[in-house]
């Protein structure tokens, strides 16, 4: 099971360590540092490393490495999932997961780690259970605590841990009862030079924010559940009912949670909301090249495309860009060679265009690699897969809650090759 955890920052300092069994010296991290050096980019460090006596499994989140040390045969996915859960919990407690925040709350983090794992076995990883035992810091509470001498460690038994619905505590009370669901879809796509879809899929997620009194039992049904053939649910969802009736029936956790993830694969036709006409070329003679990009709407289902942004990682030889944009602004970062064109709203009447010349380093050969275009966009009130929630029913409680569903489509890893 998980033996130890080291938190390592961007510059390679270990700033927190936690051991769940015997103490393992920091020198074990040297193997990791070696791999880190070799990988050049921090994202490229292999997640599973073997050392003579230990295995190092790490994740990279928020410019921090969460490095766990294990000694026996343990499912690596279990470790990676757990590490992400640690990062999620820190984010949940303190609003972000960064070195500064962890250092500011080091004792709470330490207490959390102690509660999350016992002898390497996960103990309490549900955020509501943890919050019952260790209250997240708020300004008000720390003031009150200082004045009264109270602590932010709960002294009740975490009820949720024992019930059959470990994700929900009992005795929840709200004056305003509300349940909101966000259907968020990300399009992952690769388009080739000519604009043909090489590969496209939709990663969907339903985020819920449920503040309901008591023990409500919810049923969420869809207009077109057939779309969903590849789903993964929060543990609260009753799988049997999904299989037989294609409805989501569940007792929700309290607060914010991810109800389900789904995946609409490339087999089904995935609508691509924009098209990109581009040409980036470098001349054989002379240190320059040309760039011309136009973006237009394709399948937007009548909605407006917003937050449009194009990011291009230019070849190393490109020194500067002299371009004009008909809409939005562009920046070219000389150090990282990243060209960002922030367009904003897409106006179908007047298509945005970016055009101009690139200067390359004199004397170097024409760059061989073609830069890819990364597109960012947002479409409000649309789930591009066509998924629609038809109704939400509540059983088990008498009051009438406020209900709401929002849809949002975003670009995930949306790439255009040149």
């Amino acid at each position, binding site marked *: *099971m998980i033996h130890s955890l080291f938190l390592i920052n961007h510059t390679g300092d*270990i700033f927190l*360590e936690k051991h769940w*069994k015997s103490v393992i010296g920091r020198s074990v991290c040297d193997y990791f540092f070696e791999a880190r050096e070799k990988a050049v980019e921090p*994202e*490229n460090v*292999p*997640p*599973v490393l*073997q050392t003579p*006596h230990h*295995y190092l499994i790490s*994740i990279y989140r928020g410019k921090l490495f969460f490095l766990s040390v294990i000694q*026996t*045969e343990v*499912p*690596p996915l*279990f470790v*990676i999932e757990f590490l*992400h859960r640690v990062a999620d919990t820190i984010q949940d407690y303190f609003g972000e997961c960064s070195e500064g925040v962890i*250092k*500011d709350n*080091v*004792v709470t983090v*330490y*207490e959390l780690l*102690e509660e999350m794992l*016992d*002898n390497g*076995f996960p103990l309490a*990883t549900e955020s509501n259970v943890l919050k019952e035992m260790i209250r997240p*810091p708020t*300004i*008000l509470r720390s*003031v009150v605590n*200082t004045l009264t001498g109270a*602590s932010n*460690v709960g002294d009740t*038994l*975490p009820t949720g841990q*024992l019930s059959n619905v*470990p994700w929900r505590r009992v005795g929840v009370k709200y004056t305003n009862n509300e349940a909101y669901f966000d259907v968020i879809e990300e399009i992952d796509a*690769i388009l080739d030079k000519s604009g043909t879809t090489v*590969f496209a*899929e939709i*990663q969907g997620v339903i985020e819920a924010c449920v503040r309901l009194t008591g023990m409500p039992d919810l049923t969420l049904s869809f207009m077109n559940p057939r779309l969903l*053939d590849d*789903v*993964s649910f*929060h*543990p609260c969802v009753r799988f049997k009912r*999904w299989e037989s009736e294609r409805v989501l029936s569940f007792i929700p956790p309290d607060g914010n949670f991810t109800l*389900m993830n789904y*995946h609409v*694969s490339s087999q089904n036709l995935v609508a691509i909301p924009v098209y990109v006409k581009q040409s980036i070329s470098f001349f054989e003679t002379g240190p320059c090249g040309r760039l011309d990009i136009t973006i237009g709407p394709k399948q937007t289902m009548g909605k407006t495309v917003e937050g449009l942004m194009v990011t291009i*990682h230019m070849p190393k030889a490109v020194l500067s860009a002299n371009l004009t944009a008909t809409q939005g602004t562009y920046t070219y970062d000389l150090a990282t060679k990243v060209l960002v064109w922030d367009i904003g709203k897409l106006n179908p009447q007047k298509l945005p265009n970016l055009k101009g010349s690139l200067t390359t380093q004199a004397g170097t050969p024409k760059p061989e690699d*073609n830069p890819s275009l*990364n597109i960012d966009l947002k479409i409000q009130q649309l789930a591009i897969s066509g998924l629609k929630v038809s109704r939400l029913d509540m059983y088990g409680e008498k009051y009438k809650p406020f209900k709401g569903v929002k849809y949002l489509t975003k670009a995930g*890893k949306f790439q255009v*090759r040149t």
Partner: protein
Amino acid sequence: MQEWANQLCENRQFGSKMTDSKYFTTTKKGEIFELKAELNSDKKEKKKEAVKKVIASMTVGKDVSALFPDVVNCMQTDNLELKKLVYLYLMNYAKSQPDMAIMAVNTFVKDCEDPNPLIRALAVRTMGCIRVDKITEYLCEPLRKCLKDEDPYVRKTAAVCVAKLHDINAQLVEDQGFLDTLKDLISDSNPMVVANAVAALSEIAESHPNSNLLDLNPQTINKLLTALNECTEWGQIFILDCLANYTPRDDRESQSICERVTPRLSHANSAVVLSAVKVLMKFMEMLPKDLDYYGTLLKKLAPPLVTLLSAEPELQYVALRNINLIVQRRPEILKHEMKVFFVKYNDPIYVKLEKLDIMIRLASQANIAQVLAELKEYATEVDVDFVRKAVRAIGRCAIKVEQSAERCVSTLLDLIQTKVNYVVQEAIVVIKDIFRKYPNKYESVIATLCENLDSLDEPEARAAMIWIVGEYAERIDNADELLESFLEGFHDESTQVQLQLLTAIVKLFLKKPTETQELVQQVLSLATQDSDNPDLRDRGYIYWRLLSTDPVAAKEVVLAEKPLISEETDLIEPTLLEELICHIGTLASVYHKPPSAFVEGSRGVQHKRLPGSAGSGESADSPDTGSAAGVSEAPPAVIPSQGDLLGDLLNLDLTPPTTSGPPPAPSSGMQMGAMDLLGGGLDSLMGDESEPPPVPQRTDTPQSPQLSHQSPSPPDYSPTELGGDLGGSPAMGAGFGAPPTAMPASFPPPVSGGLDDLFDLGGSVGMPMGAYSPPKSIWLPAMKAKGLEISGTFARRAGVIQMEMTLTNKAMSIMTDFAIQFNRNSFGLAPAGPLQVLTPVGPNQSIEVALPLSTVGPVMKMEPLTNLQVAVKNNIDVFYFSSQYPISMLFVEDGKMERQVFLATWKDIPNDNEAQFQIKDCHLNSDAASSKLQGSNVFTIAKRTVEGQDMLYQSMKLTNGIWVLAELRVQAGNPNYTVSLKCRAPEVSQCVFQSYEAMLKN
């Protein structure tokens, strides 16, 4: 309002001061002093702040152990937070101050009685984390209570605590009976307790590989499946991993487990999903393929695997490594999902490389166009490693999908035109492989390749190019010039290039003898006189002699037709793959190595196997599913020509070993020398260079010293002498096409006698299988056992191991109430039922008993390996004796390996594991020996006759899944056999050899 805002501002300032960063001040001597004072303060609040400061220092690795007594003093408190903080401190430092830690014991013991279950659990949990022997003694009583606590939260915490305690003091846990209590918890009413008990037992079992702690039977499985639905996600992982170790009784049980596990595939936690995939992949093996459910299950497996690929990159990586295995075992699952493996440019490099691997595995005629377009795209990316791999992938596609070869070649040519140095080099390396696969098809591109000769600076690319020039010397006008240009810097080249250059020039000479005589002499003298490399020297001499004695033979040898290379050379060897499938989701599956290869500790040789299929079908592709009857009737496949076997061996050898394969090992025995020469030497001799020259060790083989001490002038050896020189390796001789050396006329051995013996034996004890069984011997003399004499033997009858005993009562009184028990033994032999002695045995009476044995008992390695310690009880006393069983009892009926698998396995097992034995005075011919051995489940897979010597390649499988491969050499007229045994567990070799001798001589 304004006032409120001001206040808020103040609060915020106050709040920011409240963060823990204030604890980070340097811990100088003075500070420790200050902390000490604060810890002993009367004010609760001050105390708590001080403890917090101490903990903060501790978490960043500062040494605050000097404060131990002061912190422990704070433990007696009602404040839960303070208590927890002190506990945290204790866990960290108790080890360094064991005597001080004792001070805390009383508080722990008291807390274990607290009315609040949270405190009880916390106390028992913390106590387990204090790794001090003295404390553990005090822990036992509280732990025992907590294991039976009324509150499940305490019980589940206590379950984990048993695992902790076991880690510190295993003996104590066993003595105190905690393991049994833990086993009882598997039947607990609370699913969380069940999950933790399973997790704890699994961890303990890991350090006790054979203890049989998790005794899985249908009842416990049912309990686990019930708990599976209700416990936490982590608990589900533990339970699923535990389920995967179970072997269902039949396909119906298998199906019902699969049905109950399938819902886990939709879990949000990817570790749960992968563990569920493991269970399904394993149990699927047992389902008949024509079952509807089988198809449904296959369909259900694809979406969750695809979903894993949209997770964080670290998860993707582990998922991809596992998918790589799954795709090899069951390509049909993901055959339509090619596109999800397309590489995104911002994937981390480790994800990119894995995706590429899987793309090639999934490549087929249907999707090859897409794949190629993608690969071409990748070849223009920035990352050098990735680009190289992409180029190689194009080559692999060409070899895998014949229809695409042409397109692949033209893609590669396009890439060569880019003139990017490393792309060109990779392209040339793969084009060479394409030539090998499709001879006389794409040679038109050679001209383009030659243009790039100068830009090649990597040994592999240079070697590939040289091979191409040598191989197609007749079509390249200036081949001699090209090769000559390489020759100038001969000594600066790497060995790989030198060897290749030598071979290429010899080929050139054989093709165009007139113009190149000078060149060949130059290279031969460079290789034989000026080189320190024994490989190069040896090869130089061989060519030299060949050329000087018989150029025609030389031509036949050097320019012999090469076998085509196989398309799936990088596949994981099937037995290893089967084992890895059982380890999906574990580190083993990430490394693609069996756990025994890298997990420290005592798992030993406990290899997991896939269960056999219950239905029809599959027997062709998996070695362990062939039915016993089918195997025993099938005649041993006789390899018709030597070239064929040679081809097979070469086939397996043509690409460099994949990362999962072991490196070429030094050769030990004579036969291995031959294998080695076949694998590396001969095959490179014949013009293939993709095998890295394997052997500086080859100097160890008997023939090389002779060779290398010859004078450099071309000696006048006759072909037979050369054959004789290499006599140790008959296959080599065959490869040279030299006539077999005359052998003394073979005398037919006295077969009838042997057969009679066999018949005799079969008749007297009525053995249907004709398996060898030793005669009964006295195991327990009457003197030692108060008048009870036991003699007996072991036999394998119709697949069941039996212990056959004669119990004789030589005492004066009647004997009754017989019972038998075995000590743990190497192969887990255990009585499958009680000893059936129904009637009392009177004085001077004897009774025959046959006791069927199972092999699922507890395992412990014995010395000698086949030793069995037995206890027999009767109404008088308990008696102990030990006996040794012939290991042939353990050869199972499905021990016949497929030829390909055999070859692969033989090569895969390191040579260190090979053992060679002589069997003297055996007068059987090879066929009689083969059929005799077959009776005892030793299966002959292939037979080869070289120079009057029969070589039988045989395989057998032990009940615990260990394969033993054998090569039996029988020379007509020579009563001495040689048997070479190879096995991953070399300790069994001696026993197997003894059995061979016993089986053959009976």
